């Protein structure tokens, strides 16, 4: 499926992006011959039949793991190799945090259904879930700037993923945390609520079930019954949901990276589209498909761990 999606994106990218546009309107104007000479060695010349171009590109990946070059000649491999870790850092941290927070809040509000705590948590969640990510991220930037001014030093950095000239393990760790805090917070803020609602409704269904009543009748406290019996069953659908929400996290990461000026895959996505970098666009699509598949595999593993009825053969 990943291969099919990547190839489809290749053809769609050719339909909508025109690498030639980068050279039209340059001063001094380039002759047709010069443009062809620039594009031809990069497999971006539209005079070559599409299938020939495609085979060049596809066989390059198959045999040399070479994802081609952009219109300015920089290697897609190098770009992606650096950027994917920047993005992975942000997305992994945010996904773990928002899942844990959502599940914890879901358990909290399910065990206090319709009481004050539940109502407040639900009211907050429905608002945060529907704040657009752009507004959330920029709002956090404003708050952080105000906070930095009150404290007097730069606690939160609002641009970039790391500072230049920081070395040593602990300084680097602190520096990374200062940079990663805000974008992660923005992603968590808008993402946690869906797990809150899902976990709450699933857990409520399970709390009313016979086996939880049985556990209570055996003498377990309500807390124990929820933790040991109801929670484990209701976690299974939530983990499947996590896998399918990874593309949404990626979309959110595109916007957060552009706001916080992180040089990650999301920013690469914007750059490649504006520069008509076809090979780069396809690499971004492939990255998206790979992390979706990765999420699906992780979810399968989690289900096997949680659900004793599923046996691995």
């Amino acid at each position, binding site marked *: 499926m990943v291969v099919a999606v990547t190839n489809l994106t290749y053809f769609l990218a050719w339909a909508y992006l025109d690498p030639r546009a980068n050279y039209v309107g340059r001063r001094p104007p380039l002759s047709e011959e010069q443009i062809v000479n620039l594009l031809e060695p990069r497999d971006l010349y539209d005079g070559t039949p599409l299938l020939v171009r495609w085979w060049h590109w596809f066989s390059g990946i198959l045999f040399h793991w070479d994802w081609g070059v952009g219109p300015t000649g920089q290697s897609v491999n190098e770009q992606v190799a650096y950027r994917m870790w920047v993005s992975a850092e942000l997305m992994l941290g945010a996904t773990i945090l928002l899942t844990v927070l959502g599940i914890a809040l879901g358990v909290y509000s399910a065990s206090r259904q319709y009481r004050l705590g539940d109502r407040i948590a639900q009211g907050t969640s429905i608002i945060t879930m529907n704040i657009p990510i752009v507004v959330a991220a*920029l709002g956090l930037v404003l708050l952080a700037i105000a906070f930095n001014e009150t404290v007097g030093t730069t606690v939160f950095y609002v641009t970039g993923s790391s500072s230049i000239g920081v070395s040593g393990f602990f300084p680097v760790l602190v520096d990374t945390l200062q940079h990663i805090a805000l974008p992660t917070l923005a992603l968590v803020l808008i993402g946690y609520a869906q797990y809150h609602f899902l976990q709450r409704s699933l857990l409520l269904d399970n709390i009313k079930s016979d086996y939880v009543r049985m556990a209570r009748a055996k003498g377990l406290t309500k807390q124990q019954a929820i933790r040991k019996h109801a929670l484990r069953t209701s976690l299974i659908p939530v983990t499947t949901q996590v896998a399918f929400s990874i593309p949404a996290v990626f979309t959110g990461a595109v916007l957060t990276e552009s706001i916080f000026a992180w040089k990650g895959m999301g920013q690469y996505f914007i750059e490649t589209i504006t520069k008509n970098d076809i090979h780069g666009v396809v690499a971004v699509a492939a990255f*998206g498909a790979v992390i979706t598949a990765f999420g699906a595999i992780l979810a399968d593993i989690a289900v096997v761990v949680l659900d004793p009825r599923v046996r691995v053969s």
Partner: protein
Amino acid sequence: MTSRPIPLNDPDAGDDTTTPGSGHDAPERKRLTKWQLYSRRFARNRPAVAGVVIFALLVAFALFGSFFAKYDHVELDFLALSDPPSPEHWFGTNNSGNDLYAMVVVGLQRSLLIAVVVAVGTTVLSALVGTAAAYFGGRVERVSLFVIHFLMVAPTFLLLAMMSNDSGGDWKVIALVLILVSWFFQARTIWTMSLSLREREFVHAARYMGVPGLRIVLRHMIPNIGSLLVINFTLGVVGAVMAETGLSFLGFGVKLPDVSLGSLIGIGASSISSAPWLFAFPAAALTLLTVSMALIADGLRDALDPTSAAGGRA
């Protein structure tokens, strides 16, 4: 809580499943029509009512706000560059002298228009494909499900960005592309629900009476998932607003001289510490729009769901 006796509404095919208690066991109780029941249940949900009020105010602002504007949204006031909010420019101005109030009005119109068009298109398309796939079965079902599953793994946001960037910022193209990349999740849900619907007696009855297949889908199946469609529509508005503003923020959506809330926020983002009002006003309008619509969807879900716990005392 007043209720007046009303004749039962026509037992039209499809509508009867959601009509409340038949009343044979308690003849002295006064009956409510379906819509009275729904509106009463909706009105009991205070956040949902607040959502309706906010949404109505926003629509009024988008429609009539320009009557109060002192400037046009493309008009430049060179004596007021990057001015904070003042009596002259209520929401301030940007660095080329555009009046932000006029721009927010126009941007809100544009965002709302795209959102409503996309939500209508998505709901109609998903309802038709979902129910038709379930009713006709066989090849129709296989092909539709294949398309749906393929789109589910495709990098839709990327395709969306490429296509709308290529269109040069025409809102009609953006709306069309947004419909194309957002209908399939709903279609899959509707297909799942319609699977049980197609085995119902009234569908069989219609089929054996010789009603053509397309009419069964349109007259008997789609009205039965009406409540789901209403909820999908409101959630579709939220999703479309978010997608459109995200695109416009990145510069792939609506482009100058046309403005939307997303492109306004994009302009405001570059000067967020020196001119925060450029960000604050469009962001507030956008957040109010999405949150109010979500509250409405939540209230509708409680009001329309016959098994909802929130509807105990109608």
